Protein backbone atom coordinates (compact mmCIF):
# COMPACT_ATOMS: atom_id res chain seq x y z
CA UNK A 1 0.00 0.00 0.00
CA UNK A 2 1.50 3.32 -1.03
CA UNK A 3 1.74 6.24 1.37
CA UNK A 4 -0.68 8.51 -0.56
CA UNK A 5 -3.20 5.65 -0.66
CA UNK A 6 -2.77 5.06 3.06
CA UNK A 7 -3.35 8.75 3.80
CA UNK A 8 -6.29 9.00 1.43
CA UNK A 9 -7.96 5.82 2.69
CA UNK A 10 -7.64 6.86 6.35
CA UNK A 11 -8.81 10.36 5.47
CA UNK A 12 -11.98 8.87 3.98
CA UNK A 13 -12.45 6.83 7.13
CA UNK A 14 -12.17 10.01 9.23
CA UNK A 15 -14.72 11.74 7.01
CA UNK A 16 -17.17 8.84 7.07
CA UNK A 17 -17.27 8.76 10.91
CA UNK A 18 -18.32 12.41 10.88
CA UNK A 19 -19.63 13.03 14.39
CA UNK A 20 -16.96 10.98 16.10
CA UNK A 21 -14.20 12.75 14.15
CA UNK A 22 -15.66 16.20 14.78
CA UNK A 23 -15.74 15.60 18.53
CA UNK A 24 -12.12 14.46 18.68
CA UNK A 25 -11.00 17.31 16.47
CA UNK A 26 -12.89 19.71 18.73
CA UNK A 27 -11.19 18.31 21.84
CA UNK A 28 -7.77 18.60 20.20
CA UNK A 29 -8.58 22.08 18.88
CA UNK A 30 -9.63 23.33 22.31
CA UNK A 31 -6.36 22.11 23.81
CA UNK A 32 -4.23 23.79 21.18
CA UNK A 33 -6.35 26.94 21.29
CA UNK A 34 -5.88 27.05 25.07
CA UNK A 35 -2.11 26.82 24.68
CA UNK A 36 -2.06 29.53 22.03
CA UNK A 37 -4.40 31.91 23.86
CA UNK A 38 -2.95 31.48 27.33
CA UNK A 39 0.61 31.98 26.11
CA UNK A 40 -0.63 34.98 24.14
CA UNK A 41 -2.03 36.38 27.39
CA UNK A 42 1.12 35.58 29.37
CA UNK A 43 3.45 36.97 26.77
CA UNK A 44 1.16 39.95 26.32
CA UNK A 45 1.41 40.69 30.03
CA UNK A 46 5.18 40.35 29.86
CA UNK A 47 5.43 42.75 26.93
CA UNK A 48 3.02 45.12 28.64
CA UNK A 49 5.26 45.32 31.69
CA UNK A 50 8.38 45.72 29.55
CA UNK A 51 6.71 48.52 27.61
CA UNK A 52 5.73 50.24 30.85
CA UNK A 53 9.30 50.04 32.09
CA UNK A 54 10.74 51.32 28.84
CA UNK A 55 8.30 54.20 28.87
CA UNK A 56 9.81 55.56 32.07
CA UNK A 57 13.21 55.75 30.44
CA UNK A 58 15.94 53.71 28.82
CA UNK A 59 19.41 52.88 30.10
CA UNK A 60 18.22 54.21 33.40
CA UNK A 61 19.97 54.07 36.76
CA UNK A 62 18.41 55.35 39.97
CA UNK A 63 20.50 56.47 42.90
CA UNK A 64 18.81 56.24 46.30
CA UNK A 65 20.13 57.46 49.61
CA UNK A 66 20.86 54.68 52.09
CA UNK A 67 22.15 51.21 51.54
CA UNK A 68 20.14 48.16 50.72
CA UNK A 69 21.76 45.18 52.39
CA UNK A 70 22.44 42.20 50.18
CA UNK A 71 20.02 40.23 52.27
CA UNK A 72 16.89 41.37 53.92
CA UNK A 73 15.37 44.75 53.31
CA UNK A 74 16.71 47.99 54.60
CA UNK A 75 13.70 50.08 55.41
CA UNK A 76 15.71 53.31 55.41
CA UNK A 77 16.42 52.97 51.71
CA UNK A 78 12.74 53.07 50.97
CA UNK A 79 11.76 55.81 53.34
CA UNK A 80 14.77 57.98 52.65
CA UNK A 81 15.81 58.09 56.30
CA UNK A 82 19.55 57.64 56.29
CA UNK A 83 22.40 58.96 58.30
CA UNK A 84 23.95 60.72 55.34
CA UNK A 85 21.96 62.61 52.74
CA UNK A 86 22.24 62.49 49.00
CA UNK A 87 22.91 66.06 47.90
CA UNK A 88 23.05 68.14 44.76
CA UNK A 89 26.81 68.13 45.13
CA UNK A 90 26.78 64.35 44.84
CA UNK A 91 24.71 64.62 41.69
CA UNK A 92 27.12 67.10 40.13
CA UNK A 93 30.01 64.69 40.78
CA UNK A 94 28.37 62.16 38.50
CA UNK A 95 28.47 64.53 35.53
CA UNK A 96 32.20 63.83 35.10
CA UNK A 97 31.67 60.18 34.29
CA UNK A 98 32.23 59.41 30.59
CA UNK A 99 29.48 56.77 30.39
CA UNK A 100 26.79 59.17 31.50
CA UNK A 101 24.70 61.07 28.96
CA UNK A 102 22.67 63.11 31.47
CA UNK A 103 21.37 63.05 34.98
CA UNK A 104 18.49 64.61 36.85
CA UNK A 105 18.35 65.14 40.60
CA UNK A 106 14.87 64.72 41.95
CA UNK A 107 12.92 65.97 44.91
CA UNK A 108 9.29 65.08 45.46
CA UNK A 109 6.75 66.79 47.64
CA UNK A 110 3.21 67.99 47.76
CA UNK A 111 1.96 71.57 47.76
CA UNK A 112 -1.11 73.63 47.07
CA UNK A 113 -1.37 75.08 43.60
CA UNK A 114 -3.63 78.07 43.11
CA UNK A 115 -4.46 80.21 40.15
CA UNK A 116 -7.49 81.79 38.53
CA UNK A 117 -9.60 81.23 41.67
CA UNK A 118 -8.88 77.54 41.68
CA UNK A 119 -6.95 75.56 44.25
CA UNK A 120 -5.74 71.98 44.50
CA UNK A 121 -3.06 69.85 46.02
CA UNK A 122 -0.48 68.69 43.52
CA UNK A 123 2.59 66.49 43.51
CA UNK A 124 5.63 68.66 43.02
CA UNK A 125 8.72 67.39 41.29
CA UNK A 126 11.87 69.45 41.71
CA UNK A 127 14.44 68.75 39.04
CA UNK A 128 16.36 70.07 36.06
CA UNK A 129 15.58 70.17 32.37
CA UNK A 130 17.08 66.69 31.93
CA UNK A 131 14.24 65.08 33.81
CA UNK A 132 12.00 65.36 30.75
CA UNK A 133 14.14 63.33 28.31
CA UNK A 134 15.35 60.87 30.95
CA UNK A 135 11.80 60.04 32.03
CA UNK A 136 10.61 60.00 28.42
CA UNK A 137 8.15 62.81 29.07
CA UNK A 138 7.16 65.20 26.34
CA UNK A 139 6.31 68.85 26.39
CA UNK A 140 3.09 69.76 24.61
CA UNK A 141 3.90 73.47 24.62
CA UNK A 142 6.53 75.86 25.84
CA UNK A 143 9.86 74.85 27.28
CA UNK A 144 11.39 73.61 30.45
CA UNK A 145 13.75 75.72 32.50
CA UNK A 146 16.89 76.05 30.47
CA UNK A 147 20.27 75.18 31.87
CA UNK A 148 21.59 78.03 33.94
CA UNK A 149 18.13 79.38 34.61
CA UNK A 150 17.39 76.86 37.36
CA UNK A 151 16.91 79.66 39.79
CA UNK A 152 14.23 81.45 37.86
CA UNK A 153 10.78 80.78 39.24
CA UNK A 154 9.26 78.84 36.36
CA UNK A 155 6.91 75.90 36.44
CA UNK A 156 5.86 73.14 34.06
CA UNK A 157 2.29 71.84 34.49
CA UNK A 158 1.03 68.34 33.88
CA UNK A 159 -1.53 68.04 31.09
CA UNK A 160 -4.51 67.54 33.38
CA UNK A 161 -3.48 70.30 35.77
CA UNK A 162 -3.11 72.73 32.88
CA UNK A 163 -6.54 71.75 31.60
CA UNK A 164 -8.15 72.15 35.02
CA UNK A 165 -6.68 75.51 35.81
CA UNK A 166 -6.75 77.04 32.36
CA UNK A 167 -9.57 75.37 30.48
CA UNK A 168 -10.15 78.24 28.08
CA UNK A 169 -6.93 80.19 28.07
CA UNK A 170 -3.34 79.49 27.13
CA UNK A 171 -1.51 78.20 30.20
CA UNK A 172 1.90 79.39 29.07
CA UNK A 173 2.78 82.79 30.50
CA UNK A 174 0.20 82.59 33.30
CA UNK A 175 1.18 83.21 36.85
CA UNK A 176 0.39 80.59 39.46
CA UNK A 177 1.00 80.26 43.16
CA UNK A 178 2.57 77.10 44.52
CA UNK A 179 2.73 77.02 48.28
CA UNK A 180 3.94 80.50 49.22
CA UNK A 181 5.78 81.18 45.98
CA UNK A 182 4.76 82.57 42.68
CA UNK A 183 5.76 80.86 39.44
CA UNK A 184 5.51 81.62 35.77
CA UNK A 185 4.11 78.78 33.65
CA UNK A 186 6.81 78.00 31.09
CA UNK A 187 5.58 74.73 29.66
CA UNK A 188 2.83 72.11 29.65
CA UNK A 189 3.50 68.37 29.54
CA UNK A 190 1.91 66.24 26.86
CA UNK A 191 -0.78 63.89 28.16
CA UNK A 192 0.82 60.52 28.86
CA UNK A 193 -1.51 58.74 31.20
CA UNK A 194 -0.43 56.49 33.97
CA UNK A 195 2.76 54.46 33.80
CA UNK A 196 3.90 52.23 36.64
CA UNK A 197 1.26 53.74 38.89
CA UNK A 198 2.56 57.27 38.47
CA UNK A 199 0.50 59.79 36.58
CA UNK A 200 2.59 62.48 34.96
CA UNK A 201 -0.55 64.35 33.96
CA UNK A 202 -1.15 65.43 37.54
CA UNK A 203 2.27 66.75 38.57
CA UNK A 204 3.99 70.05 38.34
CA UNK A 205 7.73 70.41 37.82
CA UNK A 206 9.78 73.25 39.27
CA UNK A 207 13.53 73.91 39.39
CA UNK A 208 15.32 71.79 41.97
CA UNK A 209 16.58 74.83 43.95
CA UNK A 210 13.05 76.11 44.43
CA UNK A 211 11.85 72.69 45.43
CA UNK A 212 14.57 72.32 48.03
CA UNK A 213 13.83 75.77 49.37
CA UNK A 214 10.09 75.10 49.45
CA UNK A 215 10.45 71.77 51.24
CA UNK A 216 13.26 73.12 53.38
CA UNK A 217 15.73 70.38 52.64
CA UNK A 218 19.16 69.91 51.11
CA UNK A 219 18.87 66.21 50.53
CA UNK A 220 17.68 64.62 47.29
CA UNK A 221 14.99 61.97 46.95
CA UNK A 222 16.64 60.32 43.92
CA UNK A 223 19.15 60.96 41.23
CA UNK A 224 18.08 59.63 37.83
CA UNK A 225 20.98 58.83 35.52
CA UNK A 226 20.90 57.89 31.88
CA UNK A 227 23.94 56.26 30.31
CA UNK A 228 25.02 56.71 26.72
CA UNK A 229 24.71 53.05 25.77
CA UNK A 230 23.14 49.92 27.12
CA UNK A 231 26.62 48.44 27.71
CA UNK A 232 27.54 51.42 29.89
CA UNK A 233 25.00 50.59 32.57
CA UNK A 234 27.15 48.22 34.62
CA UNK A 235 30.44 50.19 34.39
CA UNK A 236 28.53 53.38 35.16
CA UNK A 237 27.01 51.77 38.22
CA UNK A 238 30.44 50.72 39.52
CA UNK A 239 31.96 54.12 38.79
CA UNK A 240 29.08 55.95 40.46
CA UNK A 241 29.33 53.77 43.52
CA UNK A 242 33.08 54.49 43.75
CA UNK A 243 32.67 58.26 43.35
CA UNK A 244 29.83 58.56 45.83
CA UNK A 245 31.59 56.31 48.33
CA UNK A 246 34.60 58.60 48.14
CA UNK A 247 32.42 61.67 48.54
CA UNK A 248 30.77 60.13 51.58
CA UNK A 249 34.01 59.57 53.45
CA UNK A 250 34.44 56.01 52.28
CA UNK A 251 31.02 54.95 53.45
CA UNK A 252 28.93 53.12 50.88
CA UNK A 253 25.60 54.51 52.00
CA UNK A 254 23.76 54.79 48.73
CA UNK A 255 21.92 52.28 46.61
CA UNK A 256 21.88 52.17 42.83
CA UNK A 257 19.05 50.37 41.11
CA UNK A 258 19.36 49.64 37.43
CA UNK A 259 16.21 49.55 35.39
CA UNK A 260 17.70 46.55 33.64
CA UNK A 261 17.82 44.48 36.80
CA UNK A 262 14.20 45.20 37.63
CA UNK A 263 13.16 44.57 34.06
CA UNK A 264 15.07 41.29 34.01
CA UNK A 265 13.34 40.12 37.15
CA UNK A 266 9.88 40.93 35.80
CA UNK A 267 10.77 39.42 32.48
CA UNK A 268 11.84 36.18 34.13
CA UNK A 269 8.82 36.01 36.44
CA UNK A 270 6.33 36.61 33.63
CA UNK A 271 8.14 34.27 31.30
CA UNK A 272 7.92 31.54 33.92
CA UNK A 273 4.25 32.37 34.34
CA UNK A 274 3.69 32.03 30.58
CA UNK A 275 5.42 28.66 30.63
CA UNK A 276 3.30 27.57 33.56
CA UNK A 277 -0.01 28.43 31.89
CA UNK A 278 1.23 26.79 28.68
CA UNK A 279 1.96 23.67 30.69
CA UNK A 280 -1.47 23.70 32.27
CA UNK A 281 -3.05 24.11 28.84
CA UNK A 282 -0.90 21.27 27.51
CA UNK A 283 -2.57 18.96 30.02
CA UNK A 284 -5.77 19.34 28.04
CA UNK A 285 -3.81 18.12 25.01
CA UNK A 286 -2.83 14.99 26.90
CA UNK A 287 -6.49 14.51 27.80
CA UNK A 288 -7.37 14.87 24.11
CA UNK A 289 -4.69 12.29 23.37
CA UNK A 290 -6.29 9.83 25.79
CA UNK A 291 -9.61 10.52 24.09
CA UNK A 292 -8.04 9.63 20.74
CA UNK A 293 -6.62 6.44 22.22
CA UNK A 294 -10.03 5.47 23.60
CA UNK A 295 -11.82 6.21 20.35
CA UNK A 296 -9.23 4.30 18.32
CA UNK A 297 -9.55 1.31 20.63
CA UNK A 298 -13.30 1.38 20.10
CA UNK A 299 -12.69 1.68 16.36
CA UNK A 300 -10.49 -1.42 16.39
CA UNK A 301 -13.16 -3.52 18.05
CA UNK A 302 -15.86 -2.02 15.81
CA UNK A 303 -13.90 -2.75 12.68
CA UNK A 304 -12.57 -6.16 13.66
CA UNK A 305 -14.32 -7.93 10.77
CA UNK A 306 -13.09 -5.25 8.39
CA UNK A 307 -9.51 -5.72 9.58
CA UNK A 308 -9.87 -9.48 9.05
CA UNK A 309 -11.16 -8.84 5.54
CA UNK A 310 -8.27 -6.49 4.73
CA UNK A 311 -5.87 -9.21 5.80
CA UNK A 312 -7.73 -11.79 3.70
CA UNK A 313 -7.44 -9.66 0.59
CA UNK A 314 -3.72 -9.14 1.15
CA UNK A 315 -3.08 -6.37 3.68
CA UNK A 316 0.05 -6.84 5.79
CA UNK A 317 0.08 -6.13 9.51
CA UNK A 318 2.05 -2.97 8.86
CA UNK A 319 -0.55 -1.83 6.31
CA UNK A 320 -3.19 -2.10 9.03
CA UNK A 321 -0.97 -0.39 11.59
CA UNK A 322 -0.24 2.48 9.21
CA UNK A 323 -3.93 2.92 8.43
CA UNK A 324 -4.72 3.44 12.11
CA UNK A 325 -1.67 5.67 12.61
CA UNK A 326 -2.72 7.79 9.66
CA UNK A 327 -6.24 8.05 11.03
CA UNK A 328 -4.94 9.36 14.36
CA UNK A 329 -2.59 11.67 12.52
CA UNK A 330 -5.44 13.19 10.51
CA UNK A 331 -7.54 13.68 13.64
CA UNK A 332 -4.78 15.30 15.69
CA UNK A 333 -3.37 17.34 12.83
CA UNK A 334 -6.76 18.72 11.83
CA UNK A 335 -7.51 19.42 15.50
CA UNK A 336 -4.18 21.17 15.93
CA UNK A 337 -4.70 23.34 12.87
CA UNK A 338 -8.20 24.37 13.92
CA UNK A 339 -6.90 24.95 17.46
CA UNK A 340 -4.17 27.20 16.11
CA UNK A 341 -6.74 29.19 14.13
CA UNK A 342 -9.11 29.42 17.12
CA UNK A 343 -6.19 30.49 19.32
CA UNK A 344 -5.10 33.20 16.91
CA UNK A 345 -8.67 34.37 16.59
CA UNK A 346 -9.03 34.42 20.39
CA UNK A 347 -5.79 36.38 20.77
CA UNK A 348 -7.08 38.84 18.20
CA UNK A 349 -10.24 39.25 20.27
CA UNK A 350 -8.18 39.86 23.42
CA UNK A 351 -6.10 42.48 21.60
CA UNK A 352 -9.28 44.01 20.33
CA UNK A 353 -10.87 44.10 23.80
CA UNK A 354 -7.70 45.26 25.60
CA UNK A 355 -5.69 47.27 23.09
CA UNK A 356 -2.92 48.03 25.61
CA UNK A 357 -2.20 44.32 26.03
CA UNK A 358 -0.03 43.03 23.17
CA UNK A 359 -1.50 39.51 23.31
CA UNK A 360 0.45 37.81 20.53
CA UNK A 361 1.09 34.11 20.99
CA UNK A 362 4.85 33.53 20.87
CA UNK A 363 5.99 31.40 17.92
CA UNK A 364 7.45 28.71 20.19
CA UNK A 365 4.11 28.24 21.91
CA UNK A 366 2.21 27.81 18.65
CA UNK A 367 4.77 25.35 17.31
CA UNK A 368 4.96 23.48 20.63
CA UNK A 369 1.16 23.36 20.90
CA UNK A 370 0.75 21.87 17.44
CA UNK A 371 3.69 19.51 17.91
CA UNK A 372 2.45 18.24 21.28
CA UNK A 373 -1.01 17.70 19.79
CA UNK A 374 0.29 15.69 16.85
CA UNK A 375 2.75 13.70 18.94
CA UNK A 376 0.10 12.88 21.56
CA UNK A 377 -2.22 11.76 18.79
CA UNK A 378 0.40 9.49 17.29
CA UNK A 379 1.54 8.11 20.64
CA UNK A 380 -2.07 7.50 21.62
CA UNK A 381 -2.63 5.47 18.46
CA UNK A 382 0.35 3.13 18.98
CA UNK A 383 -1.55 0.79 21.27
CA UNK A 384 -4.77 0.56 19.18
CA UNK A 385 -2.81 0.30 15.92
CA UNK A 386 -0.72 -2.56 17.27
CA UNK A 387 -3.81 -4.26 18.57
CA UNK A 388 -5.41 -4.03 15.14
CA UNK A 389 -2.27 -5.27 13.39
CA UNK A 390 -1.97 -8.28 15.70
CA UNK A 391 -5.56 -9.44 15.18
CA UNK A 392 -5.87 -13.02 13.99
CA UNK A 393 -7.42 -12.90 10.53
CA UNK A 394 -9.63 -15.97 10.92
CA UNK A 395 -11.00 -14.91 14.30
CA UNK A 396 -11.45 -11.33 13.09
CA UNK A 397 -13.46 -12.50 10.08
CA UNK A 398 -15.68 -14.54 12.37
CA UNK A 399 -16.76 -11.38 14.22
CA UNK A 400 -19.69 -9.46 12.95
Amino acid sequence: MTLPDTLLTSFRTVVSYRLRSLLIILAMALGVAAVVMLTALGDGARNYVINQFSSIGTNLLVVLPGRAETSGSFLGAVLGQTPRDLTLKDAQLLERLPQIRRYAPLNVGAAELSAANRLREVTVLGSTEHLIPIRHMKLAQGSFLQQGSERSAQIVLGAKIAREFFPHTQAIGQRVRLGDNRFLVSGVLAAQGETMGFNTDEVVIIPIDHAQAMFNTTSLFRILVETKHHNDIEPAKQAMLAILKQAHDGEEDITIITQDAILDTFDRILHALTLAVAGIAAISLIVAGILIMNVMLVAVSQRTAEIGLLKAIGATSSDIRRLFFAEALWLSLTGAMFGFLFGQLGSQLIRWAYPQLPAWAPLWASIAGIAVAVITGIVASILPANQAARLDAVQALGKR
Partner: protein
Amino acid sequence: MIKLQSITRTFHMGDQAVYALNDINLQIDSGEYVSIMGPSGSGKSTLLNIIGLLDQPNSGRYELDGKPVTDLTEIEQARIRREKIGFVFQSFHLVPRLTAAENIELPLILGGIPVEQRQARVQAALQAFELLQRAQHRPSELSGGQRQRVAIARATIMQPSVILADEPTGNLDHQIGAEVMVLLENLHHAGTTLIIVTHDRELGARAHRQIGMRDGRILTDQHS
Protein backbone atom coordinates in the same frame (compact mmCIF):
# COMPACT_ATOMS: atom_id res chain seq x y z
CA MET B 1 -1.28 -26.34 -7.97
CA ILE B 2 -2.02 -26.85 -4.29
CA LYS B 3 -0.21 -29.62 -2.45
CA LEU B 4 -0.83 -30.33 1.26
CA GLN B 5 1.29 -32.94 3.05
CA SER B 6 0.50 -34.15 6.58
CA ILE B 7 -1.18 -30.86 7.52
CA THR B 8 -2.27 -30.76 11.15
CA ARG B 9 -4.04 -27.92 12.89
CA THR B 10 -4.95 -28.12 16.55
CA PHE B 11 -6.88 -25.76 18.79
CA HIS B 12 -6.77 -25.78 22.53
CA MET B 13 -9.96 -25.86 24.48
CA GLY B 14 -8.91 -25.71 28.09
CA ASP B 15 -6.43 -28.53 28.63
CA GLN B 16 -7.66 -30.52 25.69
CA ALA B 17 -6.13 -30.34 22.22
CA VAL B 18 -8.77 -30.52 19.52
CA TYR B 19 -7.74 -31.57 16.03
CA ALA B 20 -9.35 -29.25 13.48
CA LEU B 21 -7.23 -30.89 10.81
CA ASN B 22 -5.60 -34.25 11.37
CA ASP B 23 -2.90 -35.35 8.93
CA ILE B 24 -4.42 -33.96 5.76
CA ASN B 25 -2.84 -34.97 2.45
CA LEU B 26 -4.39 -33.32 -0.56
CA GLN B 27 -3.42 -32.23 -4.03
CA ILE B 28 -5.53 -29.90 -6.14
CA ASP B 29 -4.39 -29.18 -9.67
CA SER B 30 -4.67 -25.82 -11.38
CA GLY B 31 -8.08 -25.22 -12.92
CA GLU B 32 -9.91 -27.85 -10.83
CA TYR B 33 -13.41 -27.28 -9.45
CA VAL B 34 -13.53 -28.78 -5.98
CA SER B 35 -16.20 -28.79 -3.30
CA ILE B 36 -15.39 -29.54 0.32
CA MET B 37 -18.35 -30.87 2.29
CA GLY B 38 -18.96 -32.04 5.79
CA PRO B 39 -20.88 -31.24 8.96
CA SER B 40 -19.97 -28.19 10.97
CA GLY B 41 -16.82 -28.72 13.02
CA SER B 42 -15.46 -31.14 10.44
CA GLY B 43 -12.55 -28.78 9.67
CA LYS B 44 -13.62 -27.77 6.17
CA SER B 45 -13.37 -24.02 6.87
CA THR B 46 -10.03 -24.47 8.61
CA LEU B 47 -8.78 -26.31 5.54
CA LEU B 48 -9.93 -23.44 3.35
CA ASN B 49 -8.25 -20.88 5.63
CA ILE B 50 -4.99 -22.80 5.53
CA ILE B 51 -5.12 -23.05 1.73
CA GLY B 52 -5.81 -19.30 1.68
CA LEU B 53 -2.85 -18.62 4.04
CA LEU B 54 -5.16 -16.99 6.59
CA ASP B 55 -4.31 -19.70 9.09
CA GLN B 56 -1.06 -21.52 9.82
CA PRO B 57 -0.87 -25.30 10.23
CA ASN B 58 0.82 -26.63 13.38
CA SER B 59 2.74 -29.12 11.29
CA GLY B 60 2.95 -30.31 7.72
CA ARG B 61 4.03 -28.90 4.42
CA TYR B 62 2.06 -26.73 2.01
CA GLU B 63 3.26 -26.04 -1.52
CA LEU B 64 1.53 -23.52 -3.74
CA ASP B 65 2.56 -23.60 -7.43
CA GLY B 66 5.57 -25.71 -6.53
CA LYS B 67 6.87 -23.42 -3.77
CA PRO B 68 6.63 -24.13 -0.05
CA VAL B 69 4.64 -21.30 1.58
CA THR B 70 4.29 -22.35 5.24
CA ASP B 71 7.62 -20.82 6.26
CA LEU B 72 7.19 -17.53 4.40
CA THR B 73 7.14 -14.29 6.35
CA GLU B 74 3.90 -12.53 7.14
CA ILE B 75 4.58 -9.95 4.43
CA GLU B 76 5.29 -12.57 1.75
CA GLN B 77 2.14 -14.50 2.68
CA ALA B 78 0.10 -11.29 2.45
CA ARG B 79 1.51 -10.78 -1.01
CA ILE B 80 0.45 -14.28 -2.10
CA ARG B 81 -3.05 -13.72 -0.70
CA ARG B 82 -3.20 -10.49 -2.65
CA GLU B 83 -1.96 -11.81 -5.96
CA LYS B 84 -2.93 -15.48 -6.16
CA ILE B 85 -5.96 -15.97 -3.94
CA GLY B 86 -9.45 -14.54 -3.94
CA PHE B 87 -11.80 -15.04 -1.00
CA VAL B 88 -15.61 -15.11 -1.19
CA PHE B 89 -17.40 -15.27 2.16
CA GLN B 90 -20.85 -16.32 3.25
CA SER B 91 -21.52 -12.93 4.84
CA PHE B 92 -19.93 -11.01 1.95
CA HIS B 93 -17.61 -8.96 4.23
CA LEU B 94 -18.02 -5.69 2.40
CA VAL B 95 -16.77 -2.50 4.09
CA PRO B 96 -20.02 -0.68 4.97
CA ARG B 97 -18.53 2.82 4.61
CA LEU B 98 -17.34 2.25 1.06
CA THR B 99 -19.32 2.21 -2.17
CA ALA B 100 -19.49 -0.89 -4.36
CA ALA B 101 -16.77 0.50 -6.62
CA GLU B 102 -14.55 1.36 -3.64
CA ASN B 103 -14.98 -2.11 -2.17
CA ILE B 104 -13.93 -3.66 -5.45
CA GLU B 105 -10.95 -1.29 -5.62
CA LEU B 106 -9.57 -2.30 -2.17
CA PRO B 107 -7.23 -5.13 -3.29
CA LEU B 108 -5.79 -2.84 -6.00
CA ILE B 109 -5.06 -0.18 -3.37
CA LEU B 110 -3.39 -2.75 -1.13
CA GLY B 111 -1.39 -3.92 -4.14
CA GLY B 112 -0.12 -0.41 -4.79
CA ILE B 113 -1.58 -0.32 -8.32
CA PRO B 114 -1.50 3.24 -9.81
CA VAL B 115 -4.78 5.18 -9.74
CA GLU B 116 -5.32 5.34 -13.52
CA GLN B 117 -5.12 1.55 -13.89
CA ARG B 118 -7.36 1.08 -10.87
CA GLN B 119 -10.18 3.11 -12.36
CA ALA B 120 -10.11 1.15 -15.62
CA ARG B 121 -10.00 -2.24 -13.90
CA VAL B 122 -12.82 -1.37 -11.49
CA GLN B 123 -14.96 -0.16 -14.41
CA ALA B 124 -14.33 -3.40 -16.27
CA ALA B 125 -15.22 -5.49 -13.21
CA LEU B 126 -18.41 -3.46 -12.59
CA GLN B 127 -19.41 -4.13 -16.17
CA ALA B 128 -18.55 -7.84 -16.04
CA PHE B 129 -20.68 -8.35 -12.93
CA GLU B 130 -23.50 -6.05 -14.10
CA LEU B 131 -22.96 -3.59 -11.28
CA LEU B 132 -22.48 -0.36 -13.26
CA GLN B 133 -25.81 1.07 -12.05
CA ARG B 134 -24.87 0.25 -8.45
CA ALA B 135 -21.25 1.47 -8.50
CA GLN B 136 -21.83 4.41 -6.14
CA HIS B 137 -24.17 2.56 -3.76
CA ARG B 138 -23.08 1.44 -0.33
CA PRO B 139 -23.54 -2.20 0.69
CA SER B 140 -26.59 -1.32 2.82
CA GLU B 141 -28.32 -0.13 -0.35
CA LEU B 142 -27.62 -3.36 -2.25
CA SER B 143 -29.54 -6.63 -2.39
CA GLY B 144 -27.92 -9.86 -1.16
CA GLY B 145 -27.16 -11.02 -4.67
CA GLN B 146 -25.66 -7.66 -5.57
CA ARG B 147 -23.52 -7.73 -2.45
CA GLN B 148 -22.14 -11.15 -3.30
CA ARG B 149 -21.49 -9.98 -6.86
CA VAL B 150 -19.49 -7.06 -5.45
CA ALA B 151 -17.59 -9.51 -3.23
CA ILE B 152 -16.82 -11.77 -6.19
CA ALA B 153 -15.73 -8.78 -8.27
CA ARG B 154 -13.41 -7.81 -5.42
CA ALA B 155 -12.07 -11.37 -5.13
CA THR B 156 -11.26 -11.50 -8.84
CA ILE B 157 -10.00 -7.96 -9.45
CA MET B 158 -6.36 -9.04 -8.95
CA GLN B 159 -6.90 -11.98 -11.34
CA PRO B 160 -6.00 -14.67 -8.80
CA SER B 161 -5.34 -18.26 -9.81
CA VAL B 162 -7.39 -19.65 -6.92
CA ILE B 163 -10.87 -18.64 -5.71
CA LEU B 164 -11.81 -19.85 -2.23
CA ALA B 165 -15.53 -19.61 -1.47
CA ASP B 166 -16.81 -20.37 2.05
CA GLU B 167 -20.57 -21.07 1.85
CA PRO B 168 -20.97 -18.42 -0.89
CA THR B 169 -24.74 -18.94 -1.17
CA GLY B 170 -25.41 -19.48 2.54
CA ASN B 171 -27.05 -16.07 2.99
CA LEU B 172 -28.92 -16.05 -0.31
CA ASP B 173 -32.22 -17.54 -1.43
CA HIS B 174 -32.22 -20.46 -3.84
CA GLN B 175 -32.55 -18.60 -7.12
CA ILE B 176 -30.05 -15.86 -6.32
CA GLY B 177 -27.70 -18.51 -4.95
CA ALA B 178 -27.88 -20.36 -8.25
CA GLU B 179 -27.02 -17.15 -10.12
CA VAL B 180 -24.00 -16.60 -7.89
CA MET B 181 -22.89 -20.19 -8.49
CA VAL B 182 -23.05 -19.58 -12.24
CA LEU B 183 -20.79 -16.56 -11.81
CA LEU B 184 -18.28 -18.60 -9.81
CA GLU B 185 -18.42 -21.49 -12.27
CA ASN B 186 -17.77 -19.03 -15.10
CA LEU B 187 -14.52 -18.16 -13.34
CA HIS B 188 -13.68 -21.84 -13.27
CA HIS B 189 -14.43 -22.10 -17.00
CA ALA B 190 -11.99 -19.22 -17.54
CA GLY B 191 -9.26 -21.35 -15.94
CA THR B 192 -9.32 -20.37 -12.28
CA THR B 193 -9.06 -23.02 -9.60
CA LEU B 194 -12.36 -22.95 -7.70
CA ILE B 195 -12.70 -24.42 -4.20
CA ILE B 196 -16.09 -24.20 -2.51
CA VAL B 197 -16.85 -25.11 1.08
CA THR B 198 -20.49 -26.01 1.65
CA HIS B 199 -22.74 -28.31 3.58
CA ASP B 200 -25.36 -28.22 0.81
CA ARG B 201 -25.14 -31.60 -0.99
CA GLU B 202 -26.86 -30.31 -4.11
CA LEU B 203 -24.39 -27.47 -4.41
CA GLY B 204 -21.43 -29.70 -3.68
CA ALA B 205 -22.51 -32.13 -6.36
CA ARG B 206 -22.02 -29.49 -9.05
CA ALA B 207 -18.24 -29.62 -8.53
CA HIS B 208 -16.14 -32.00 -10.58
CA ARG B 209 -14.41 -33.27 -7.49
CA GLN B 210 -16.06 -33.69 -4.12
CA ILE B 211 -14.17 -34.02 -0.87
CA GLY B 212 -16.01 -35.19 2.23
CA MET B 213 -14.62 -34.35 5.66
CA ARG B 214 -15.34 -35.37 9.22
CA ASP B 215 -13.45 -34.74 12.45
CA GLY B 216 -10.55 -33.11 10.72
CA ARG B 217 -9.92 -35.95 8.29
CA ILE B 218 -10.72 -36.45 4.62
CA LEU B 219 -13.25 -39.29 4.39
CA THR B 220 -14.10 -39.31 0.71
CA ASP B 221 -12.50 -37.83 -2.36
CA GLN B 222 -14.39 -38.61 -5.54
CA HIS B 223 -14.31 -37.27 -9.06
CA SER B 224 -17.49 -37.11 -11.06
